[in-house]
């Protein structure tokens, strides 16, 4: 036993491999492997009658998925929603996280963090249905249906459309933006803020020149969550719009259910590519040091 230990100490790499080997292999086979299989299956031709993939290869699915304007439009709209949701989350999360981290009394801090994370404890579907109930339009054609919370309280609701999607998605993923920003602020040495004040910078200047640059990686990390979670979601868009809004996830689900597995796989390449590009961009901003 002692000999083995000595052997392992002398061969660091081997001991590392024996510890990490299984998880890494699992990653490669299960995760990368299934991704690769999905890419490959986008090239199979569908048999029109039985609706099963055949062994024939074709580039038609890729062509359809990437050149048909209606589908490209869906992708663009989905990216648009993801960008808007990410922006909204950032706008809300930054002051909230700043307040918790730097302004709130130390005894209140823990409670506020718990309050911010509390929504994560509720079921995803429950929150989706809750938004649907809140957004429900009121009376139409003289028939009073009462409407949802928004309509009953403010007499106005955006109804079941794109705004509903943005609101619900922002609500769902907000905690994932708050947490990294809070952590980033928490890591900020107070001495830097003091030093900035000592050389005469006003609070806004300190915020702009000291805090924000140091926060960029944290914001980038948070945006990865909000962006990719929104981009891939298909249940909420369906739920809060009565099926009227289609995002890329709905398109994939619908095509998979048609069933047209090869075309669905081709559609899946869209979010895959977008997220890869996005991750590459965020990596440059240092997001991965901040997760």
């Amino acid at each position, binding site marked *: 036993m002692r000999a083995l230990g000595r052997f392992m100490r002398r061969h660091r790499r081997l001991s590392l491999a024996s510890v990490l080997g299984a998880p890494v292999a699992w990653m490669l086979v299960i995760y990368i492997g*299934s991704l690769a299989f999905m890419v490959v299956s986008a090239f199979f031709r569908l048999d029109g009658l039985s*609706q099963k993939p055949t062994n024939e290869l074709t580039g038609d699915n890729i062509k359809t998925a990437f050149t048909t304007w*209606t589908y490209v439009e869906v992708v663009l709209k989905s990216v648009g929603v993801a960008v808007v949701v990410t922006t909204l989350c950032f706008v809300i999360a930054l002051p909230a996280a700043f307040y918790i981290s730097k302004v709130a009394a130390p005894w209140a801090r823990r409670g506020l963090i718990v309050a911010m994370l509390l929504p994560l404890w509720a079921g995803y579907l429950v929150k989706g249905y809750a938004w649907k109930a809140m957004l*429900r339009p009121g009376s*139409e054609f003289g028939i009073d249906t009462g409407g949802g919370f928004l309509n009953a309280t403010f007499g106005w609701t955006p109804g079941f459309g794109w705004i509903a999607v943005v609101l619900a998605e922002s609500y769902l993923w907000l905690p994932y933006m708050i947490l990294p920003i809070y952590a980033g602020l928490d890591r900020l040495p107070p001495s830097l803020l003091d030093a900035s004040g000592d050389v005469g910078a006003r609070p806004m200047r300190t915020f702009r020149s000291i805090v924000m640059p140091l926060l960029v990686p944290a914001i980038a990390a948070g945006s990865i969550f909000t962006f990719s979670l929104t981009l*891939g979601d*298909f249940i909420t868009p369906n739920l809060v719009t009565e099926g009227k809004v289609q995002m890329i996830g709905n398109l994939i689900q619908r095509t998979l259910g*048609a069933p047209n597995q090869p075309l669905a796989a081709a559609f899946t390449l869209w979010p895959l590519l977008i997220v890869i590009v996005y991750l590459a961009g965020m990596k440059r901003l240092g997001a991965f040091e901040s997760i």
Partner: protein
Amino acid sequence: MTTTHRSLRRLLAGAAVLSVVAVACGGDDDDAAVTTTAAPVATDAAPETDPPVDDTGTMPTELGAGEGEVNLIAWAGYVEDGSTDPAVDWVTPFEEATGCQVNVQLGNSSDEMVQLMQTGEYDGVSASGDATLRLIAGGEVAPVNTDLIPNYADVFPDLKLQKHNSVEGVPYGVPHGRGANLLVYNTDLYTTAPDSWGEMFETDSAAAGSVSVYDSPIYIADAAVYLMSTQPELGITNPYSLDQTQFDAAMALLEQQKGIVGQYWALYTDQQAALEGGTALAGTTWQVIVNLAKANGAKIDAVKPVEGATGWSDTWMISSKAAHPNCMYMWMDHIISPQANAEVAEWFGEAPANTASCDLTADPDHCSTYHAGETDYWTDVWYWTTPEETCLDGRTDVTCVPYTEWVNAWNGLRS
């Protein structure tokens, strides 16, 4: 990502139909040796579960004992065990009689049923005519030896050996029943019943903005049915047999409809909620949804409009990979038995397949209300079927738009 989608999707479906998915456990689970009432049991009930097959190797010639369970894919309302309504239960008697515990996965559309059957994990399916041909072509289902299904003899003759449930005189499954997709309307808005699909298609409809549409490519046929009356110059004679011009006209009508749609429903529970909440004022529906919503106080009613309607003639089919073939045969016999078929027909709101069921319905007029035996009534009900390139209406000078194109067009419309 695909895997996540699929599991989340299951989750959604599961949550939405929670009450129906899990089916009660009757009978003795451990003891697979059972007594059957209707299906003939091989007297030398050997422990083997694979029944003997005929020369072609596909059809059993006699049934063995039940395997203890059966896994079904079904439309909502077809497999009821009393969990939806204690009075609505034709599963428990089956489980008690055969020892086959029934597990059911609801299919929300024919497409979904085809997809589920392709997994090979189920014993059978209640397939509509637009799924049956795809399932047969894909080898998902096996031909059925109707000698092992005594109740088959009493099925209405005009349901047997149709194009959608047989190949060259060999039946693929047993007819379940048939019905029409109806126009549902809010009775507060419509004090007199509307009688035209125009309420769902014309922009000046009283229900504009609150129209509820079935979210499936097969709905294109509903537009075609309306066009058969309103634009006879298009020459549509069968809504599933559309050449490119006719198809484009149907899509244009659906594009127009899109402006007044309040909801595209894929889960029947979504439409039910919209009818109850009053956010859907006119829509295409199934009678069972109307029944469920009415029971919850929705002010609605449903009619079959003058233009005719799309509809379904469903078939219980057995999977070619069925793990519990004996139980599946017993189920096929049970669901078309006079009593069970009467119950399911009345609950779902359709015409039964068994001629003897008409004497057993709780409402003695059920069969006349649903025109079970009237061949004339069904002439303007267009059973769902799979559109193919070869025109179904017999035209040979043009090619028709195949179903894969219907799917693409529907995707485009919905994007």
